[in-house]
């Protein structure tokens, strides 16, 4: 009994520490502050995306579509659909404070829900694109990509951070 205990107790402690380190690693990633410039980040994302069905939106468009106040953040980049029949959209927000993650996330989720409702039963391809959209909240950057290859956009996004 003593022999197994001699092994089990340090093993249990080591497992605890390992789980803890994993958890801290996860927290670090979701809290990482990137110094990247928003123009660099958006350029990286748009260069791997088919932008033909999107046009750049200004502050009032961000406000209108997401209800977010661009002045509160360190930069916003929006590409929204040129025609009402498509749902291609990219939103990148650089936060000034990590606490803003929640509100931006809520705004993106709300927008996604509205778009899904609009396209449900309409364009199957568009609806699918929305379902496969990526919302990536990484520290002080938020990406929302409803594009044909959202994963590639996300990968480019992560790389530039």
């Amino acid at each position, binding site marked *: 009994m003593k022999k197994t205990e001699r092994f089990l107790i*340090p093993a249990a402690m080591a497992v605890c520490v390992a789980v803890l380190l994993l958890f801290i690693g996860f927290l670090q990633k979701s809290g990482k502050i990137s110094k990247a410039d928003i123009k660099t980040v958006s350029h990286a994302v748009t260069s791997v995306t088919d932008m033909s069905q999107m046009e750049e939106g200004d502050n009032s468009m961000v406000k209108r579509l997401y209800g977010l106040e661009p002045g509160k953040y360190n930069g916003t980049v929006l590409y929204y659909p040129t025609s009402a029949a498509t749902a291609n959209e990219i939103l990148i927000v650089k936060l000034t404070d990590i606490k803003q993650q929640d509100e931006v996330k809520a705004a993106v989720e709300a927008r996604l829900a509205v778009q899904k409702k609009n396209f449900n039963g309409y364009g199957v391809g568009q609806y699918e694109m929305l379902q496969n959209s990526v919302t990536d909240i990484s520290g002080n950057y938020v990406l929302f990509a409803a594009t044909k290859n959202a994963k590639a956009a996300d990968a480019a996004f992560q790389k530039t951070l």
Partner: protein
Amino acid sequence: MGAEAMTFSSLIFLFAFFPISLLLYYLVPQKAKNTALVVISLLFYAWGMPKYMVLLAFSIFFNYFAGLGIARSKAADKRHAALTYMVIATVVNLLLLGFFKYDGFLIENINHLFHLSLTYTPLPLPIGISFYTFQALSYLFDIYMEKAPVQENFINFAVYVSFFPKITSGPIVQYHDMVDQLTHRSCDLVKFGEGAKLFIIGLGKKVLLADGLNTTFTAVSALPANGISTLTAWVGCITYTLVIYFDFSGYSDMAIGLAKMFGFDFAKNFDYPYISESVTEYWRRWHISLGRWFRDYVYIPLGGNRNGLAKNIRNIIIVWLLTGLWHGAAWNFIFWGGFYGALLLLEKFVLKDFLPKIPAAVKHIFTMLMVMIGWVFFFSPTLPSGLLWVGRMFGIGAPAAADAAGRYYLTQSLALIIIGAFGATPAAARIGRGISAMARGKYRLALRIVSCCLILVLSMAYMVNSTYSTFLYFKF
């Protein structure tokens, strides 16, 4: 508004969490009561920052096994192994605390010293980490020093670490003081009522006194530097002195009261500190559980006063710098701790023979002056700003002795300052008891009911009005 942990003075706690957890606890059979407590406590802790429950779970599991390791080694007479377990476990616990609380401070200072630019990811501070880490360490040290037997029962240990009344802001209960109550405690209507009384008083202290004075303090501290007259500086200092006392002691009262309602007896954490006649006495009356922790687990193991004068002074300095550091990851807190350490050394070694000759009133005033100046360093964001504030209080660097803003904030807070200053002394409680004693028979009972209802109802108004009013010691 981001997620925030539950405070005892919130509507959700008082009118949802509290009644439900009481009901659950008292419905469940005796054998399951500790399990119920763990569930309730984890839910309480997870409220607002659910991810950080992983840290609490880690602390429970890791320290449980570490405790077993220490005890098994001791039982097998392997003193070296026991020491290894204890040291490793202590280091891991302190690293955890250090990582979440002091990483920014450390890295910024390293960068400053060595002209580097290391980066770190600022993470929100887990609620109560200073408190439950210190309690876990208390367990490890108590097992090692054989002040208490190892806790074989995982649930019981989990109750010790996670017990919700004390997890967010203390009191820091040492393991050997609580171990017996983990398995042998009871609560009858009388004890429940005693807990309720403490809770109601604590609620009133926090909501009616501390929060009210805090609005004045917040407004004063937001004034631009050149708009703070001597009067204003004093108003800020006095209100803060009262706020932190009523906030912290009120919260401790609520914690101890709640614990009592679940059958646990904890020692009081404050004993009218503002009537102290020396700084030495003050620290025996303020945040008693912290002082005891440092005394029992740092000062005495380091030798205390048993190894000569030089080591005694060294030990005192170490304890006080650590006490300051525990309060916050910034130089002004360390300075604050050192400030008190210096005063204590002064009283203990230099003024020792003079003190009994000085009249009590003079000693009291001087002590309070030191305490209030200490608070200025506590609430100032940086050391220089603290020095400037103290300067203004004594006429240095203030645009005027008194100005309109100063008078305004004084009139705003005067009633509460007077009530607060009076309430910080035992005289208030004595008068309360005296008035109660004047009533006879059933009028006395009625008076008790009325005063309880009064405090509760008055507090509810403030609780509804503020969606959020954080207890100051939360992020520790």
